[in-house]
């Protein structure tokens, strides 16, 4: 009833193949973008922007990156944290080599390095599959982490062994460093995420995306039908790592301001993987939902006792948060193994047939 597509006739192929062929979807997307670009900047305070929205967007992008590899191309990877790190370190080196260049462009370029490294570590995927591949991607994770510590050139020989982001201006506006306003950083992050998400959505429904899905569903069959596994898998690794790399660079440039190698550890890889699986494998919207769930829920839980006027020791909250997050992950996997994206689908179906149950 609310979500009724009956009566929306397509008269051209373009209209039929549009990204959002249904009017309600277009309206919903417009509303979401309006909220993101207008309502949140008007209403949100600094804490909401810096500790909730910016990390959420960064993680969403990383989750989209991993989702391409794991959800669409079917290659399980536990190394996304390190690929994010490659992006961050590359962007850091680029800003110190080209101090006057537009830092947003540099962040976008840094993903290229990440893509290259990702493609190299994707080579074993031609022979190794499934969980075995997952464990081999750990080799990438640990090796790259070791490089971040052991190659001082990467962090400009800083005594602290960390990368610290200097102040940079774009068109006279401070965009990085401590003085950059949360709102500025939010707009940059939001714009990059929105653009990349739309690009990915279009790639996914095109020839490339379909060949990834063929490889995922059955690689031998795909090969017989003329999909080249080498190019397709490496392309998936490359594109996925590019997006992860950009997310990693944004993480340090627009959110954390400084990063140690441990910021890109295996924990981060797991965080991203959680988002992808809980959000829904093979779904762009799911990546956003998963990131929201994994990032925002603990923040919410931390403030929950305060909202009720109950005082709880800081570490007890932490313990309980761990337990609740763990339990909810299991719970969601049991109730809906296809992730939050599927719940969204079900919700849409309910709206379509409302007020009838079927």
């Amino acid at each position: 009833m609310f979500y009724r597509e009956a009566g929306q006739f397509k008269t051209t192929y373009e209209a039929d193949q549009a990204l959002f062929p249904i009017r309600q979807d277009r309206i919903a997307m417009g509303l979401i973008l309006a909220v993101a670009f207008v309502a949140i900047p008007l209403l949100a305070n600094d804490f909401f922007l810096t500790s909730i929205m910016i990390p959420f967007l960064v993680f969403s992008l990383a989750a989209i990156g991993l989702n391409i590899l794991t959800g669409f191309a079917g290659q399980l990877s536990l190394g996304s944290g390190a690929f994010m790190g490659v992006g961050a370190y590359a962007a850091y080196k680029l800003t110190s080599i080209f101090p006057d260049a537009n830092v947003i462009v540099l962040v976008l370029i840094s993903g290229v390095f990440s893509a290259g490294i990702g493609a190299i570590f994707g080579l074993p995927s031609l022979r190794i599959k499934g969980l075995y591949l997952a464990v081999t991607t750990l080799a990438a994770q640990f090796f790259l982490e070791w490089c971040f510590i052991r190659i001082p050139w990467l962090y400009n020989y800083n005594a602290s062994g960390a990368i610290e982001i200097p102040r940079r201006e774009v068109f006279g506006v401070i965009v990085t460093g401590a003085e950059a306003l949360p709102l500025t950083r939010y707009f940059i992050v939001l714009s990059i995420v929105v653009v990349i998400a739309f690009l990915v959505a279009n790639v996914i429904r095109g020839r490339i995306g379909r060949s990834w899905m063929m490889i995922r569903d059955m690689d031998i069959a795909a090969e017989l039908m003329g999909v080249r596994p080498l190019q397709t898998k490496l392309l998936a690794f490359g594109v996925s790592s590019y997006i992860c790399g950009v997310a990693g660079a944004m993480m340090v440039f627009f959110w954390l301001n400084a990063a140690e190698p441990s910021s890109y550890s295996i924990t981060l890889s797991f965080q991203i993987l959680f988002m992808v699986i809980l959000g829904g494998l093979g779904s762009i919207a799911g990546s956003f939902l998963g990131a929201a769930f994994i990032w925002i829920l603990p923040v919410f839980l931390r403030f929950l006792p305060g909202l009720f006027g109950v005082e709880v020791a800081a570490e007890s909250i932490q313990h309980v948060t761990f337990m609740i997050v763990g339990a909810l992950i299991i719970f969601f996997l049991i109730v809906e193994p296809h992730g939050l994206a599927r719940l969204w689908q079900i919700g849409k179906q309910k709206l379509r047939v409302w007020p009838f149950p079927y």
Partner: protein
Amino acid sequence: MLYDIFIDPFVQMGAQPDFLIQVLWEGFVSGILYALIALGFVLIFKASGVFNFAQGIMVVFAGLTLVGLHEQGVPAFLALILTIGVMGVLAYGIERVVMRPLVNQPDIILLMATIGLTYFLIGFGEFVFGGEPKRMITEELWLPTGSTAIEFGERGLVLLQHIDIAAAVIAVLMVSGLALFFNKTRIGRALRAVADDHQAALSVGISLNQIWAIVWFAAGIVALATGIMWGARSDVSFALEIVAFKALPVLILGGFTSVPGAIIGGLIIGFGEKLGEIYWGPLVGGGIESWLAYIIALIFLLFRPQGLFGERIIERV
């Protein structure tokens, strides 16, 4: 440069044979300990196809329960028995709450469920026992603590820790015990049947749920043994959970389903890693242990994609 890589390490080995023996011994001991963790993984993977990521936290949890009970004034051996009981309850709970509803889901979902379980156990363990590291009750469990020095030649000296010897003995006992259990008992045979084919096993009247509870329990006991041994080497703390990552290259090397594979894989990784770190590590600044095991495993894997002892992968379209 080539000399440094190909000749010098061997010259060093020859120059100090006692040291080489010590390195090999350390490699052997770490190999055994890695194998113990890997064993926990293999048991569960064999019977249920679940890649149990929670094995690491189970090690910590078992160790903490043991030490925590002892701190409450429970005698050491009673604490040991109670801990085994706790692991049994945990196994039953996991089977009931996590595994049973998730039957027949894809690998990755089951893997994620065990990661969720890891999170839960981290929070729960810290909530109950606190985050402080605890000292393993080595003496109270009648485990030896001293060391034996074997001297030979001029300056030759090899130090053997008694606890390491005990670890090796316990590992061997454990593996043989498990082998006996698998081969000679009714439950053991049922377990192998389940490992071979879930549906066939079900059709001849084997209860999948019961078998799964048993393998999780067995993995819990292996975790307890691992916890005691690792705990005695450093101490029992949540940082120990990370050690479980060490079992992964062992697993892919040995194959996910093979018990002897876990042992041999563990030894290869143990030896390879120690020799590599000591003799080749200094060339690149040391600390290569964290990834060397993975690279070793990766190289093996490129030649045998199913691991050394894994079942052959037959692909059909």
